[in-house]
């Protein structure tokens, strides 16, 4: 049976991991290769890198990071952040990324997803959706989420569930779904959002945003219906290892790779 995946996520700024990683025994808490290796040893099913580099000079550094990690860590790598053009996708894939996630650029230019998937295959194109719950008086009681772009700063007017469907039709192979309401709150995934998107598409969905405990990870799968769960801080701060997370999920009856 196919295992549900646990994916630690690393924020990378100008080639260095940020958001203080607090593993014991790490020589360099900012070194993406060392941290990726640690997660690999703990049994991570995949590793996600989000490039948050603001300056254009630092942009190329993520390519070097991917190259060094891919030479030493033999599990799938997903890389996103600042992917604007098909050339960006190609550069990251050539560097050793297995999947590239596209967020803002998919909204600005939906043809990009179609073109990238057409050229490199749907399997390597992830569409990242940052969604925020909106109050819609016309549809009282009917939950709705809006897609935000530019790192969650700009509303797009798009409905997140509709957008996920549209991106599947454009050739996305996977959806990385982040609840902006929950991100950073450690209060758990937005289960309702996860469930709505999972039910709307046939492609795998990664739940993200809000994980503060192992129970939250299990909830994302059992109640949200997610195919994979992504978390950053609970792993970075050394509260739990990936292995502990997977053991807990296994105890909850979830199929995982142990």
């Amino acid at each position, binding site marked *: 049976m196919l295992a549900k995946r646990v994916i630690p996520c690393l924020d990378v700024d100008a080639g260095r991991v940020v958001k203080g990683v607090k593993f014991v025994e790490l020589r360099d808490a900012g070194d993406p290769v060392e941290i990726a290796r640690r997660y690999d040893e703990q049994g991570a099913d995949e590793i996600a890198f989000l490039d948050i580099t603001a300056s254009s000079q630092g942009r190329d550094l993520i390519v070097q990071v991917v190259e060094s990690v*891919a030479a030493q860590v*033999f*599990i799938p790598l997903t890389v996103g952040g600042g992917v604007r053009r098909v050339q960006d996708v190609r550069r990251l894939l050539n560097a050793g990324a297995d999947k590239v996630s596209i967020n803002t650029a998919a909204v600005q230019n939906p043809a990009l997803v179609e073109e990238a998937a057409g050229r490199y*295959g749907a*399997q*390597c194109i992830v569409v990242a959706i940052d969604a925020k719950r909106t109050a819609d008086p016309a549809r009282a009681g009917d939950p709705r989420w809006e897609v935000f772009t530019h790192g969650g700063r700009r509303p797009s007017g798009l409905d997140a569930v509709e957008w996920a469907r549209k991106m599947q039709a454009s050739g996305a192979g996977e959806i990385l779904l982040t609840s902006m309401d929950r991100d950073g709150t450690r209060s758990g995934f937005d289960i309702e959002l996860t469930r709505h998107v999972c039910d709307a598409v046939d*492609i795998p969905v990664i739940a993200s945003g809000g994980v503060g405990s192992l129970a939250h990870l299990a909830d994302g799968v059992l109640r949200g219906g997610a195919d994979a769960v992504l978390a950053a801080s609970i792993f970075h701060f050394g509260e739990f290892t990936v292995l502990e997370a997977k053991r807990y999920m296994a105890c909850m009856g979830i199929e995982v790779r142990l």
Partner: protein
Amino acid sequence: MKIAVIDYGMGNLRSVSKAIEHVAPQARVLVTADPAAVAAADRVVFPGQGAMPDCMREMDARGLQPAVRKAAASVPFLGICIGLQMLFESSEEGETPGLGILRGRVKRFRRDAMRDAQGARLKVPHMGWNQVHQASSHPMWSGIEDGSRFYFVHSYYADAAPGLASACCDYGARFTCAVARDNIFAVQFHPEKSQVAGLRLLANFLAWKP
């Protein structure tokens, strides 16, 4: 030992070559589109990702088909993902003819059949870590526990002729995920992305004497 990883411009071959270098630091791994270099290699890896019609077209555009056929008939030969699918007679994906080196046809997962034992819906592409059940003992499985998980990402699988299956996997239905014949071994999953088990399979390939 010279190992050629055939490069026909379809996606990332860096991971494949790095994984082989990792298990065999002394080997010379060449990622190449040059038919002569493929012909001169001791072992050949035939990867592929994306869509099979594009893979076939790009391979032919580089004049690689004769070299691939020759390698598949002579030296230890490892097909990966689309590299497995291309060995078969044809694919439903764009109704593409394959190389026809192995008997069978490549089919898409049938949407209406995609339910697990509990009735839950299964997504396509089949993406993630699934258990590989070995159908036969083979030097390529040496040191790899039966039922080990490997990383898959695909929407099509080979419906292989009887006798070719070396391993199978369950997703909606049971499908063949590894085939073996003479000097050919091919897998639907990605050993270069399958951590310890995948690296062991690649090490086994380098030691394999068909």
